[in-house]
């Protein structure tokens, strides 16, 4: 369960302020939740708040269980050190058995000899593979997924999907994605972020429909004038 209690968050945009959350109180039950909303509505910020990567301006966020970092970026690596050293570091900060994590990541990432090379020498695909392998090695209760890019060939993609589905037997997911089919395949409910509020939809299809309606309104502002 994740609870937001009277949470407000805004940030500066040019001269004005963009409000992502205005005094929001809500509870995410242990479900697989699609986070939807227009570009810039604050979907990523919501994930970063829940992850604890950002502090709310006001209010509290309570999380039960171990929450992942927002998966999907490969920016958390120190490029001058090796894949092994980076894996060790992440494993240590999450209090994991380092040897077990190293074995899993070496095997899953399929980096071969590159695993012992500085991350600076990796292609972006290799970095993404390393990042994904590490996030699969550590067991989280909540996976926060922000536009995860599928990497590798079809076989590797299939391996990633299978690993994720296996995790989701016990864990739950909060997912941001532009791909509605990806959201449908992982999630069964939706959280629509719009204009400083978050609306929960028990049925993901209702959430997607509401989102599409908002997009339609946004595209033709003239049509709302009655």
């Amino acid at each position, binding site marked *: 369960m994740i609870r937001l209690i009277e949470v407000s968050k805004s940030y500066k945009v040019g001269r004005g302020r963009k409000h992502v959350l205005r005094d929001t109180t809500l509870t995410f039950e*242990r479900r697989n939740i699609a986070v939807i909303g227009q570009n810039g509505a604050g979907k990523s910020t919501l994930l970063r708040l829940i*992850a*604890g*990567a950002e502090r709310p301006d006001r209010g509290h966020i309570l999380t*039960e*269980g*171990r*929450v992942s*970092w927002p998966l999907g*970026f490969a*920016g*958390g*690596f*120190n*490029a*001058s*050190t090796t894949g092994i*050293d980076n894996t060790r*570091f*992440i494993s*240590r*900060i*999450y*209090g994991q058995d380092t040897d077990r994590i190293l074995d899993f990541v070496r095997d899953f990432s399929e980096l071969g000899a590159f695993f012992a090379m500085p991350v600076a020498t990796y292609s972006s695909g290799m970095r993404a593979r390393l990042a994904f392998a590490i996030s699969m090695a550590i067991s989280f*209760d909540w996976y926060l997924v922000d536009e995860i890019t599928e990497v590798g060939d079809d076989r590797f993609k299939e391996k990633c999907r299978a690993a994720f589905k296996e995790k989701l*037997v*016990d864990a739950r997911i909060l997912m941001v994605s532009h791909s509605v089919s990806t959201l449908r395949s992982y999630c069964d409910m939706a959280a629509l972020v719009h204009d400083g509020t978050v609306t929960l939809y028990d049925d993901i299809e209702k959430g997607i429909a509401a989102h599409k309606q908002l997009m339609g309104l946004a595209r033709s502002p003239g049509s709302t004038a009655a």
Partner: protein
Amino acid sequence: MSAPSTDIAARRGSPLAIMARVVAALLLRETRVRFGRAQIGYLWAIIEPLGGVLVLAFAFQLIGRVPDVGQSLLLFLAIGMLGFSLQRRLTVQLGNAFDANKALLHFPVVKRIDTLIARSILEIATSLLSMMIIIAGLVLIDGAPPPARLDIFVAGIAALALLGFGLGTLNAILNAHFRSWRHIEGLISRPLFLMSGVFFTPVMLPSAVSDILAWNPVLHGIEWLRYGYYEGYRPDFISAEYLIGWGLTTTLAGLAAERFLPPGEA
């Protein structure tokens, strides 16, 4: 299927346990990144202040100056240099802590304060080792005396470390908020080496000059070290309260800014 929530909470660990874990991981990584795999890297960091001491000693020999206190010129300069570099290295290294750890701060369990603590431990440990090796070397080779009042000497080190931590934390915050701060800081700190009593004692200066220099807290720290080290040396203007006041004020201001200001984007 779902684990009871108490079990999950236990697995996550208390905030203090998480912090200890993260600081330990940062410490291991910093050591490796900074000093490399070869131990020679660490050895360099330890004997680095000795280079400055030797250059100053050479200059003193050229102009025929004798140390203001004690018989050993090298010891006199080493105490000044070691005290100065303890404070200065903390200020500089903490100042870069957020920037150097930017990638790691993407992980929510890593807090900015953790990077400051890890760097402080590393810097203080390196400085202490450096002091012990250099001073022991001078006692053995140069016939310098051992510290007369070790407790006072160690207290002086602690006060200088506190000042370094406070200034370093402020430095890190200012770097995060103002792009041009690092240039300004460089400008302000450049004369600091000359004004901190590394190679002189204010006792030997005209009071018009020493009264002005007395505003510099680092000078109080270095004189404090000499007061602890040399038998019978008691410069009357040292104020422990002044130095500790600086240390506490900068530390509190830095930590408050870290806690309450937004992260900053400079």
